[in-house]
């Protein structure tokens, strides 16, 4: 295609300049030849221009495709990074023991060391009793908040349980719990 383009461009220049410089304008036959060659030169130049324009448009389309693919890849990477960050955060929250939280908060508020252990024990017993109920109610509350914001089921499950959509047993368990909590809240 490039060769054709170059040949057409070069021939149009030659057909334009060569007859005008080489042939005599006073002779009729020469004049006719000049007219013919000029017409042929215009045809060559226009054809070459059309070919080059088509090529240029194709190149532009290819560039757009490449840019779209790059953007897709970047988006994919960003999404996976976001999901892994969420999972790490979830894991970190699970690792942090509630006992530790309580001890820290009590250490800030209470100065007496002898009372501390008894208070901690009492608090822990209360917390274990209410823990599951509170956790569920907090989750249910959070689900309703997110639903009010217009979030979808999969997004809410990802946010609260840190599980991505799929056929994994973790996701199924989270989905079942989600349904149960929503039904309870709706009642």
């Amino acid at each position, binding site marked *: 295609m490039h060769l054709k383009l170059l040949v057409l*461009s070069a021939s149009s220049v030659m057909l*334009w*300049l060569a007859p005008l410089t080489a042939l005599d304008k006073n002779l009729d036959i020469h004049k006719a030849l000049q007219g013919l060659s000029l017409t042929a030169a215009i045809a060559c130049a226009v054809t070459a*221009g059309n070919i080059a324009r088509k090529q240029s448009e194709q190149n532009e389309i290819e560039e757009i495709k490449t840019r779209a693919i790059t953007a897709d890849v970047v988006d994919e990477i960003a999404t996976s990074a976001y999901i892994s960050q969420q999972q790490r955060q979830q894991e970190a929250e699970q690792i942090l023991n509630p006992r530790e939280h309580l001890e820290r908060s009590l250490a800030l508020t209470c100065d007496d060391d002898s009372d501390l252990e008894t208070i901690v024990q009492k608090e822990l017993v209360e917390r274990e009793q209410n823990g599951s109920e509170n956790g569920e109610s907090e989750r249910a509350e959070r689900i309703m908040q997110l639903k009010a914001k217009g979030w979808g089921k999969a997004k809410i499950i990802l946010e609260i349980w840190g599980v991505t959509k799929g056929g994994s047993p973790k996701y199924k368990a989270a989905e079942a719990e989600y349904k149960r909590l929503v039904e309870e809240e709706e009642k």
Partner: protein
Amino acid sequence: MRAMYLANYFLSGCIAFSLLGWVASLHPHAFRAVLCLLAATAIIWCLSWLLDFSLSSALKISVSDLQAYLIAAGAMFLVGLGVYLCT
């Protein structure tokens, strides 16, 4: 590639003006006809420069593009007729 197609269209314009010169050299009547055509073209060209903003909005192209086309048309005229007359 974009430069290539613009160069080819410019070249075809130059050759078209040379062909116009060749037509003008065929007969005195043809010469007058070509002269009238060139005069009309020159008037339109000047008016386009004067009304470039309204023309660009009517043609839905930017003013700089319109000015580029007008300059290219002027250059085609000069190169095409110049080549024909000088050879």
